[in-house]
């Protein structure tokens, strides 16, 4: 495989990892007020992402850094053309990160309420906007951007609700399952529309023979989401989370498959790419480092694998 193809795949992998991982922490942040009735429950809900959200966000930093290094023109073109949406994404990530870190360190309930507001807005805004930005990148169309945003917001919410159900006990767990079912009423239709639009986005007529595996990914992503809803209904939370994660992973695969070989209109990966020396040397370093990074991140999930109970405040 030539290096530009490989690095496009690496970037697709990093973005997809970001969608899957930060997808659930966006959902948890967004739904925290709905999933908890008191301070003890609120801590229980936010505690599910407490140790891991920052590491999940580094997937974004790495994805964007890799785009900068491997495809500077794509990085520069995409970031400067989605200027205001990305400004809002950054503002959201700022208030969210600060809210999550400061929440346990403020003294008054009113300050905690500010943190909660920051976490909720700062989770919802990027969750919506990333879907909108990538849908706009793919379709170049405002309505498609709106659908993409609703899709990513609702799927993140569902993914987060399932994660809370998987990681908690008691009233919060039951509430998270009910919330997941409620959110699925929006998420599943939005997924059907948004995902089915991906394979034929760059072609004039929908022709499944042009890109059969894109159709396979899009259909499998939709099916995984539907399966996730059914599994959470049956109380199989581990499998349900696997299913919602698969939906985001397959959706990411379909998205980047459709963006290949021209991630921006009028810009192919070959035109956007850095020189073979840079790509080559980064490949070696990346391949050497990635197993360690994935290993210790997986270990941190293993350390915090237990379900959380609501402890008296």
């Amino acid at each position, binding site marked *: 495989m030539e290096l530009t193809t490989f690095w496009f795949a690496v970037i697709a992998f990093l973005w997809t990892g970001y969608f899957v991982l930060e997808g659930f922490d966006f959902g948890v942040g967004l739904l925290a007020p709905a999933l908890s009735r008191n301070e003890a429950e609120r801590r229980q809900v936010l505690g599910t992402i407490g140790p891991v959200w920052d590491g999940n966000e580094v997937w974004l930093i*790495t994805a964007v850094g890799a785009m900068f290094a491997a495809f*500077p023109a794509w990085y520069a073109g995409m970031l400067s053309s989605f200027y*205001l949406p990305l400004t809002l994404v950054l503002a959201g990530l700022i208030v969210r990160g600060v809210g999550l870190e400061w929440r346990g360190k403020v003294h008054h309930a009113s300050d905690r309420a500010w943190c909660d507001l920051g976490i909720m807005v700062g989770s919802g805004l990027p969750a919506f906007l990333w879907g909108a930005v990538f849908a706009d990148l793919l379709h170049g169309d405002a309505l498609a951007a709106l659908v993409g945003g609703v899709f990513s917001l609702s799927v993140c919410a569902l993914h987060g609700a399932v994660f809370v159900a998987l990681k908690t006990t008691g009233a919060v767990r039951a509430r998270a399952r009910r919330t997941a079912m409620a959110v699925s009423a929006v998420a599943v239709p939005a997924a059907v529309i948004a995902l089915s639009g991906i394979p034929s986005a760059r072609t004039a007529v929908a022709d499944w023979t042009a890109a059969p595996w894109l159709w396979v990914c899009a259909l499998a992503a939709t099916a995984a989401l539907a399966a996730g809803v059914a599994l959470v209904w049956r109380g199989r939370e581990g499998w349900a989370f696997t299913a919602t994660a698969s939906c985001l992973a397959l959706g990411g695969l379909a998205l980047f498959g459709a963006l290949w070989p021209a991630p921006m209109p009028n810009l192919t990966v070959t035109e956007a790419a850095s*020189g073979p020396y840079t790509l080559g040397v980064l490949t070696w*370093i990346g391949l050497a480092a990635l197993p360690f990074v994935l290993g210790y991140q997986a270990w941190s999930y293993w350390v915090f694998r237990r379900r959380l109970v609501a402890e008296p405040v």
Partner: protein
Amino acid sequence: MDALDLARWQFGVTTVYHFLFVPLTIGLGVFVAGLQTAWHRTGKEHYLRLTKFFGKLFLINFAMGVVTGIVQEFQFGMNWSEYSVFVGDVFGAPLALEALLAFFLESTFLGLWIFGWDRLPKRVHLATIWAAVIGSNLSAYFILAANAWMKHPVGYEVVDGRARMTDLWAVLTNPTATAQVPHVVAASFVVAGGFVLAVCGYHVLRERRDPDRTRPVRRGADMWRTPIRAALVMTAIAGAVVAVSGDTSAKLMYEQQPMKLAAAEGLRHDTAGAPFSPVPGVEIPMMLSLLSTNDPNAVVQGTEDLQKRFTQQFGPADYRPNMPVVFWSFRVMIVFGLATVGLAFLGLWLTRGRRKRNPRQVPSWLARAFLLALPLPTLAVVAGWLLSEIGRQPWTVQGELLTAASVSPGVGLGEVAVSLALFTALYGALALAEAVLIVRHVKSGPEPVAPARRPDAPSGVGGNTAADLQPTLMY
């Protein structure tokens, strides 16, 4: 006022703001890891209390460094797309490596540290804070290597109007970087040391004024002696590194960025045996030549003569940076930085003596002077960045790319104005909130902890649960 001016303001505001928090992350993290190591080795309770006290201050500050850092990574593409396309091949590589090798380490292990007090064996838990601070310090290396390349581009060739990397090793071992990395990292330790001194100074003064209030918690200023001595040592050593690496940087500046050196000194014409003036009106003969080349008679180029030479070399344009800003930031950096380091050496002398045999107490006037150790090095660091980056103007990449040619062509004045206004308002509000939060935590002081577990006891044994040990670090 056009989009270029606002984009420059945005870069300046974001970068300076980001770097208000980063030095504390870098230096205080190591300080906290050191305290926890001391607790691990001695089992003494007050080390644990200090670990948690400074650990909490570290975490309040850490959040701000992280979130403003994301803006840093995005703004190259958003505001400076022409720059990004030109340099991405070279400049993007250290940024990608920074994320992959440093940020993952920092964020994952910090999460493990914050939430792992009762879930990890003590030794492993101690290792997590060290892994996190290694990540922070490593990130400084990569981003400073990228920044050094803007001042002294190496290991590349320009092909079809884009820089192409030819040698990553040359980029990572750029002499500008290997002088700048110790300079900035050590300066971060000075800032962190100054922060600790100010916090301790405040408590020492309060306990002397109002001994009854604090006595039940811990006897007298004794508790603060350990962090004061540790911070003094840290600040003094780091200060020496800052001075030596700063001298190296000045010599590199003489070769690589003569215009910046001339502007920093206000030297208008090429001068042999150039003098150094600490303040206008006072001149130390031949000092500038000596500082920048080790030769008191060497010729230092002046701004006006450089302007003529650059015009010949690169075409007509104004190649002089904003002279007053560069001139004064150079002096603020040196004076405030040296004052902090001087305070540290003075403090070390005045508090000398072994702890057990009647150690010298911190004099009250010295404790009051410690309060200045918070603002002084921070201002020195801000001034250092202003010197470094405004002094590089009008270039983004010295000799290769002008700032005016770096800005995003498709981004309008309105868009930059909206985002600049939004970020500035957000930064202002959050800075205020962080200051209030830090002051509150400093005032409430170290909390008593349940008797520490034996270092080798398994977790959960002895009645210490997460709630006893770590009540406020959790959500």
